[in-house]
């Protein structure tokens, strides 16, 4: 297998085309479109028929080059080769012959267009907006044509809520214009339509020519409903396109321009549906919060609350009083114990346990505190710890000497 650079492959294909004897001198019949006259004087255009297109370039001065324009039916002679830069194959035109007298027709068409434009039939100010949600749309076309099937297919998928009222007619040939006019007028008699679609599928400019008819253009101009024209393909223009309120490039596109997108609407409706749920839930939640706040305020204002406070204070005081009372009792007990201890310490009988004795006279129990209280011969009681001795004073002795010394 070979690997090429792009340039190499294009050169190879070019050689292949140029080495073919048939392709080096051919006649091709078709309609001129995309016609361009470059500053260099070269002419560029396409030749097309109902099915296909062919790129053409004329680098040679053509005898009738000045007459060439879009829409003309011609026969062109030339050689086929490849324009390597773009990788496009094209016809390098040597000669062009005009077929029939289409040139005259175009001159007439241009004149008609100017006249109608001067009357204001194509004015932007006349254009009406299409209804956003049409319920019934009048369609003028051939019932057997693919165009009408296309329109139905689009609407079935996109917005099947609409009802079509088909006013059938021929859409091609010399008989077509009056038939189309009558088909339009049948719809104008109704008052239940929201819009009108005049459509026809693709074809040669001759096939579509009847849509340049003045009678059709004038009839469409006085439609009581907003109008959409959809004749041929993207590149085809006829006079009905200028007079219609909206021009659609194809019948399918016409059906889309006339209707809202059902899938988007369904999404939007579901969104709105859940927005209802959310906003009612939010409202409930706000009401609930407000209720809870009120309940709290109410609780703060309630007499129950101060009653509880008072009760608690009573409890506190009771406890404090109890604590105080027990404290006092304990203090008193301690004081009593201390006094008892002091009393015991002061009790003279306690001295007896340390060997001291109390001496009293037996006859009158008077304490003997000096020599004079108990002369010799006096009976005394000597009280010891636990016992009492009975005794008699036998001798007096004084500490005279000591006394004197003291004195």
């Amino acid at each position, binding site marked *: 297998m070979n690997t090429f650079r792009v340039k190499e492959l294009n050169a190879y294909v070019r050689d292949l085309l140029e080495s073919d004897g048939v392709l080096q001198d051919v006649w091709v019949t078709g309609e001129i479109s995309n016609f361009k006259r470059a500053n260099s004087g070269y002419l560029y255009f396409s030749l097309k028929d109902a099915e296909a297109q062919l790129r053409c370039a004329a680098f040679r001065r053509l005898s009738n080059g000045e007459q060439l324009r879009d829409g003309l039916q011609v026969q062109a002679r030339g050689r086929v080769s490849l324009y390597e830069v773009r990788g496009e194959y094209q016809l390098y035109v040597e000669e062009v012959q005009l077929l029939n007298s289409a040139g005259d027709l175009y001159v007439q068409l241009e004149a008609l267009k100017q006249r109608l434009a001067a009357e204001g039939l194509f004015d932007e100010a006349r254009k009406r907006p299409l209804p956003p949600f049409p319920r019934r749309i009048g369609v003028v076309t051939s019932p057997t044509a693919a165009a009408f099937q296309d329109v139905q297919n689009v609407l079935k998928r996109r917005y099947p809520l609409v009802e*079509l009222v088909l*006013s*059938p007619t021929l859409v091609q040939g010399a008989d077509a214009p009056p038939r189309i006019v009558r*088909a339009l007028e*049948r719809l104008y008699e109704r008052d239940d339509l929201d819009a009108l679609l005049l459509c026809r599928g693709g074809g040669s400019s001759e096939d579509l020519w009847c849509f340049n008819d003045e009678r059709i253009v004038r009839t469409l101009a006085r439609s009581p409903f907003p109008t959409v024209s959809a004749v041929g393909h993207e590149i085809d223009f006829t006079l009905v396109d200028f007079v219609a309120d909206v021009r659609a490039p194809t019948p399918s596109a016409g059906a889309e321009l006339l209707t809202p997108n059902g899938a988007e*609407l*369904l999404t939007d409706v579901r969104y709105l549906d859940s927005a*209802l749920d959310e906003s009612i839930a939010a*409202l409930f939640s706000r009401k609930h919060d407000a209720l809870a706040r009120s309940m709290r305020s109410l609780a703060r204002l309630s007499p129950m609350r101060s009653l509880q406070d008072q009760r608690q204070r009573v409890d506190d005081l009771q406890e404090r009083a109890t604590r105080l009372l027990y404290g006092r009792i304990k203090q008193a007990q301690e004081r009593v114990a201390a006094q008892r201890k002091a009393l015991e310490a002061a009790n003279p009988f306690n001295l007896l346990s340390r060997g001291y004795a109390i001496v009293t006279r037996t006859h009158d129990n008077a304490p003997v505190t000096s020599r004079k209280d108990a002369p010799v011969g006096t009976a005394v009681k000597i009280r010891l710890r636990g016992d009492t001795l009975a005794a008699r004073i036998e001798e007096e002795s004084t500490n005279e000497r000591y006394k004197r010394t003291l004195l």
Partner: protein
Amino acid sequence: MNDINALSFEDAYKALQETVEQLESGELPLNEAMTLYERGKALAARCQQLLTAAELRVQQLNET
């Protein structure tokens, strides 16, 4: 609610949008809000039913 089932899509859809707006706009009394909510739900159901159940109808006139 019977009136809602007679509404065209356009009318039901617009009414639904308005209902949502009203409900979202402010502090309505609860009973008013509930009435709006129920109406909105019925409108949404009507819109969905129209969008999902519709079949394209074609009426052909006679060529005279």
